[in-house]
């Protein structure tokens, strides 16, 4: 069937999908849950909290696609589920393609009048293994398609946690994982620095109108980020840092506190990039503006068994690297271009 120019123009038009007002505080949140009890996650699993808050923010007219990982295996155990909204599994590296395909399919069905024309949220989630490692190319491709409304949410517990903690591109420097056990002769077995996924997605995809980093220890901001991403139009990306009691090795009751510490120590900056406008958010912004003193990273590191082998030197090195992101980077904690550029050629 031939498509007229007008229809074609319609297809690629960028427009808000719907109006989703921001939640005004914890007491104004909707009570209804669309991801409920009875999943086989760890005690104190923050990633399952991401699932709960993500669909609470999205509401009932939502389709969720999940690539392989903890949030697939644990939430759909043996022919049972804890999802209230429709959910479908997709392969490890294909959250981007599955999300795009679903959004495109819905759009086609609506255009042909086969289903009612209404905003239906499409959210594809992936873990850090499925997103930052295997699914990177598919997510990147999806973010270049301006004409489909899909949110890709990466829940980052900093390892392949489902298969018992192998290191991923998102694992922080020095952490103990199944692939990097500290030894007697060589203490630090993981030298790589964590990938900066949200920054990479924002910097590299001008068609993507919304990118944010979130952490569920800051629930209202995080849920509002999801609502913004679902209503702004086009493909969007959210990166969530989730403390993982199994892999980070800490008492499950500390889950919330570790999320807070990741932000207040400056290791996990909260920010959003909306229509190309960059904004530091919440406590991260307070730190940048000097209203809040950045806590030392040792407060965060010494609560986790995966850093139990760190010596004072290792902690100092970790601190110096975090300081560098705050003091020398073009945008604190986000864009790893040194300010040197500015110093060499000061703006006229």
């Amino acid at each position: 069937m031939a498509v007229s120019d007008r229809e074609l123009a319609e297809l690629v038009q960028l427009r808000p999908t719907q109006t989703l007002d921001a939640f005004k505080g914890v007491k104004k949140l909707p009570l209804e849950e669309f991801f409920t009890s009875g999943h086989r996650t760890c005690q104190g699993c923050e990633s399952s909290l991401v699932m709960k808050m993500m669909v609470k923010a999205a509401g009932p007219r939502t389709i969720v696609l999940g690539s392989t990982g903890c949030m697939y295996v644990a939430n759909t155990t043996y022919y049972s589920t804890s999802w209230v909204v429709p959910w479908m599994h997709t392969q490890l590296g294909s959250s981007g393609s599955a999300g795009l395909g679903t959004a495109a399919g819905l759009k086609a069905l609506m255009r042909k009048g086969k289903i009612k024309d209404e905003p239906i949220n499409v959210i594809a989630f992936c873990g850090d293994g499925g997103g930052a490692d295997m699914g990177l190319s598919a997510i990147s491709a999806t973010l270049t398609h301006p004409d489909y409304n899909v949110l890709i949410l990466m829940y980052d517990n900093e390892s392949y946690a489902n298969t018992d903690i192998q290191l991923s591109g998102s694992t922080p420097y020095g952490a103990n994982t199944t692939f990097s056990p500290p030894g007697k002769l060589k203490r630090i077995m993981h030298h790589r620095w964590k990938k900066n996924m949200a920054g990479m997605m924002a910097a590299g995809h001008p068609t993507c109108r919304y990118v944010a980093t979130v952490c569920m220890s800051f629930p209202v901001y995080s849920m509002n980020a999801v609502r913004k991403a679902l209503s702004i139009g086009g493909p969007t990306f959210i990166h969530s840092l989730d403390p993982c009691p199994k892999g980070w090795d800490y008492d499950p009751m500390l889950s919330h506190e570790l999320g807070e510490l990741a932000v207040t120590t400056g290791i996990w900056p909260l920010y959003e990039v909306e229509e190309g406008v960059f904004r530091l958010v919440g406590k991260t912004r307070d730190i940048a503006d000097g209203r809040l003193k950045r806590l030392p990273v040792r407060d965060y590191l010494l609560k986790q068994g995966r850093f139990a082998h760190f010596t004072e030197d290792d902690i100092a090195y970790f601190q110096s690297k975090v300081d560098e992101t705050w003091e020398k980077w073009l945008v604190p904690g986000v864009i790893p271009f040194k300010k040197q550029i500015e110093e060499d050629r000061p703006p006229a």
Partner: protein
Amino acid sequence: MGRLFAVEIVYRGIFQKNLARNISRAIVLAAHHEGKPGISFGRYGDSPERNGIPAKSFAIVATDDVTLEEGMAKYEPKEVDITIVVDDTLCKGVESWAWYGLQPINRLTKPGGTLIVTSHENSETLISMAHRKETPYQLAIVKGTPSFSGLWVYKDDHSDVRILGTMAKVLPELFSLASVQQVIRAEWNDELKATSALRAYERATTVTVQPTQGNPEKPFEFQMPKWTEMREGIAIPAIPRGHQMKDPNTGEMGGYQPERNPTFKKFTTRTMRPVVDFDTCIKCTLCWLQCPDSVFDVTPDGLYDANMEACCGCGVCEAVCPVSNCITMVNETQFADNDSQWRMWKEDKEGYKGWLKEKIANRPERSHGFRFRGQYAEQVPDMLKIAREG
């Protein structure tokens, strides 16, 4: 045909993984010293293991190779000579995955077999926690705090060797104390551990649990759908949307209670449960919002009632609660049912206050893994003292 011995070790996922593996490995090595071949393995179905979820390891030993091969041909043993329970709260039963239902802790224990439990509780409490069994069995208690540690850590508090020493006493046909000590010296090169095993051996006593004793409740179970009943593809029904709650006093409707996964309840993961002081609650919503398991029902009067069928006892609610002593985590051994605390409070507020006070008095120190560097080392001396002095 020779004799086949089977031992199961029921443990808390991740927290006790290394402990369970070391015990089942040492069992096979000790039997090997006496010329009996054996094999130790973790239950494949428990993988991927999650924090706190009940899991199992097995050790199978036989008097000859053919008998062992016959025993190994089964996916997992149908009955065991000894059930080792390395955390006492597991005595309430275990639910490992969806559809399994609640399995009594003594389900696989042979008639006359032994349940070995690590606990500070006495035999009466432990017997009342376990479900009734048609045939009598023995109960042996290894006094001590259940040993919990992280994924890569092995907290060497002698729990392992004390259980092995107790085994040598209750099932001498499997291996003798001398063989166990030989293994301990070879594996750990630690004379103190060999002594701990000896002390446990000397102190081990058993009580017989009769079919009339124990929790009379019938554990919940589910019928797995047959393949003819399954839908096209692998589509399964979603959970229905939740509903309002009813106030037991006024009949007023309000609040919100989510529907929950009917085939997996998760509460056997719990070693501690939150008790809520509704009189001091300021309705800040944080426990409800931050609960990863959507445990809290919102009541018509705007309070938050932790549903004990769904709670796995992570303790995040206690951590985020801004009011001191409003939510308190209490040892799971102190409770006999999963009833709603809010209903209890609604029906008798003074009575509830007394109940709450009594429960909080039994508040244990939490030790679900790593809280600060050096914590495990701090916990070990207490256990070694118990190992030495009983």
